[in-house]
C-alpha cells in the first residue's frame, strides 16, 4: 500500500522523467523509516525520531534529485551498525560534512564564517548547514526573502527585534529592496561583528544600495552620501584603511558609527542618532568634549553650496579664481623676462 503510494507520488512529481536508481532507494528505506514510532534513545536521555515524512522529503529541493544513501553514506548494512553518538547534537555535527560533496563552494565559504570559528573553538551549538537549511525539508532559502532573516532570528532573537524596528527592518515584509541579515553579513561566510576586515568595508557595503540611483530615487534618497563621506575627513581615512589586514580597526567613524547598526533609523525620525538634537551626543562618542557648534563641522553629506555652507563654498570659489590667476601671472612674468633676455642678445 505504502510503496504503491510512493511510486505514484514519484511519478506524479516527475512527469516525463522516471525515478532514478538513487531516488528509488527512498522507497526501500521508508519501509522502516516510514514508521512514525521509529525512534532511538541516546545515552543523554534524548530521543531521536527516525521517522521521515515522505511528502515533506519529496517537497524539498532534493526530493526528486537524490536519495537517502547520498547523504547517509555510512548506512551500508541492514540492520545498521550501532552509532557512537551520546547526544543529538553529536549526531548532527557528525553529519556536518555530508553537504560538501555537492555544495563544495558554499561549504568552503562557511569555513570563513564566524559560525565555523565558534565550531572550531568547540562550541557544539554553532549552526551547521542543517540548522539554517533544514534536513529532510530543505527549501530554497530565498523564498520568500524574509525567511532568511527569520532563520537567523531563531538564534539571534535580540538583534532581530532591534532590526525589526529599524528603517530597514520595518519594510522587510513589504519590500525586497531593504537589506535582510545576509545582505550585510553574507550568508555562508557570515561575518561576525568583530571581524575587522568586514568592518573596514562598511562604507562599501552601504554604498552597494545607497549609490544605486533607481533604487534610491524610489525612496527620495540621495546617492551622493558615499562620495560626500569620502570627501570629508572620516571617509578619507576610512577609504585609506579599507585595504588594511590587521585585526584592529583604526579609530574612524564608519557609516554605522553615526547612523547605528541594527537600529538604523530614518535621519529625520525622533530616535535618529543623526537628528540635529541628538548629534552632539553622537559626535561626542568619539570627540570627547564636543559642544553645541561641533556637529556643524560635518556638512551632513551635502556638497558645499551658497545655500548649504556658504563659507566653505566661498573659500573654495576664492581659491578657484586666485590659484589660476596667480600661477598664470607668474608664468607670464617669467616668459616676458626670458623673451627680453633673448631679444637683448
Amino acid at each position, binding site marked *: 500500500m505504502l510503496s504503491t503510494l510512493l511510486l505514484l507520488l514519484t511519478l506524479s512529481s516527475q512527469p516525463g522523467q522516471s525515478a532514478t536508481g538513487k531516488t528509488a532507494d527512498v522507497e526501500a528505506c521508508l519501509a522502516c523509516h516510514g514508521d512514525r514510532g521509529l525512534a532511538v534513545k541516546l545515552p543523554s536521555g534524548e530521543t531521536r525520531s527516525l521517522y521521515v515524512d515522505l511528502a515533506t522529503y519529496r517537497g524539498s529541493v532534493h526530493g526528486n534529485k537524490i536519495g537517502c544513501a547520498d547523504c547517509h553514506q555510512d548506512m551500508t548494512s541492514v540492520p545498521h551498525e550501532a552509532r557512537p553518538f551520546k547526544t543529538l547534537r553529536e549526531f548532527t555535527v557528525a553529519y556536518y560534512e555530508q553537504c560538501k560533496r555537492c555544495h563544495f563552494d558554499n561549504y568552503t565559504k562557511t569555513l570563513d564564517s564566524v559560525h565555523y570559528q565558534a565550531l572550531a573553538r568547540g562550541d557544539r551549538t554553532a549552526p551547521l548547514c542543517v540548522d539554517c537549511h533544514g534536513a529532510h525539508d530543505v527549501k530554497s532559502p530565498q523564498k520568500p526573502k524574509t525567511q532568511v532573516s527569520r532563520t537567523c532570528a531563531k538564534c539571534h532573537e535580540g538583534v532581530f527585534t532591534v532590526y525589526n524596528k529599524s528603517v530597514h527592518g520595518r519594510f522587510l515584509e513589504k519590500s525586497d529592496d531593504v537589506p535582510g541579515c545576509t545582505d550585510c553579513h553574507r550568508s555562508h561566510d557570515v561575518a561576525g561583528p568583530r571581524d575587522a576586515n568586514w568592518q573596514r568595508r562598511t562604507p562599501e557595503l552601504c554604498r552597494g544600495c545607497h549609490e544605486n540611483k533607481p533604487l534610491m530615487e524610489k525612496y527620495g534618497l540621495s546617492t551622493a552620501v558615499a562620495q560626500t563621506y*569620502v570627501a*570629508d*575627513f572620516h571617509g*578619507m*581615512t576610512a*577609504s*585609506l*584603511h579599507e585595504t588594511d589586514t590587521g585585526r584592529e580597526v*583604526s579609530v574612524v567613524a564608519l557609516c554605522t558609527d553615526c547612523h547605528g547598526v541594527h537600529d538604523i533609523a530614518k535621519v529625520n525620525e525622533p530616535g535618529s542618532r543623526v537628528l540635529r538634537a541628538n548629534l552632539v551626543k553622537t559626535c561626542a562618542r568619539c*570627540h*570627547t*568634549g*564636543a*559642544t553645541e*557648534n*561641533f*556637529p*556643524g*563641522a*560635518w*556638512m551632513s553629506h551635502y556638497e*558645499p553650496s551658497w545655500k548649504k*555652507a556658504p*563659507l*566653505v563654498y*566661498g*573659500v*573654495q570659489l576664492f*581659491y578657484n579664481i*586666485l*590659484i589660476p590667476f*596667480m*600661477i598664470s601671472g*607668474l*608664468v607670464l*612674468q*617669467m616668459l*616676458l*623676462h*626670458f*623673451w*627680453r*633676455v633673448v*631679444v637683448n642678445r
Partner: protein
Amino acid sequence: MSTYLTRFTLRQRVEHVLVMSLFIVLSVTGLPQKYFDAAWARWFIDLTGGIDHIRWFHRAAGLSFSALTAWHLMFAIGSIAAGRSPLSIVPNRKDFDDAIQMMRYYLGRIDQPAQFDRYDYRQKFEYWGLVLGAVVVISTGLILYFPILFTRFFPGELIPAAKVAHSNEGLMAFLVVILWHIYNAHLNPDVFPFDRSIFTGKISLERMHHEHPLELARLKQIQDIEEP
C-alpha cells in the same frame, strides 16, 4: 676674482634652511593628503607607513613651522620696535613703479630696466606671499588640529572652510615656490645656474652693480667698498 659683500646674516641663512626643509616635509606629506584618491598618493602613503604616519609627520612639521614663523615675526617686531630695522622688505610706492617699469622694459617699450634697492619687487612679493601664506596655513592648520576647542567659540562651518583654505593655500604655496624659486634662484640669467647667496650669505660686487645698484650706492656712502 670679484669682491664679495655680506648680504645675509647667519640668522637669516639658518632661517632659510629651516623654512626650506619644513616646506619640503609639509608639501611631501600634505599634497598626498589633498589628492589621496590618486594612485601616486596612495603609493606614497603606503610607502611611508599609512595615513596616520603621514598625518603625524605633517603635524609635527606644521608645529615646527609655526614656531619658526612666530620666532621670525617676534624678532622682526622686536627689531622694528628697537629702531634697528631698515624696513627694507616693506613694499612701497617705488615697487609698484618698478613693476610697471619692468613690464614696459620686458615688452620693449623702454630700454632701461628698473634700478633696485636691497630687495626688488619680486623678492618682496615672495617674502610677503610666504608670510601671509604662513598665517593662513598655520591658523587653519591649528583649527583642523583642535576642532573641538575652536567650535566652542566659532560656528562649526569654520572647520570644513579651514580645510578648504588650508589645502588650497598649501597647493598655491607649493606651486608659487616651485615656479617662482626655480625662476628667481635658478633660471634667472643673472644667477644661472644657482643663486648661492642665501646659503653662503655673500653676494658678488658684480651682481650688486647689476641687481641692487641703489643699495650699493647707499652702502658706499657709509663704508669703504673697493672696486676691483
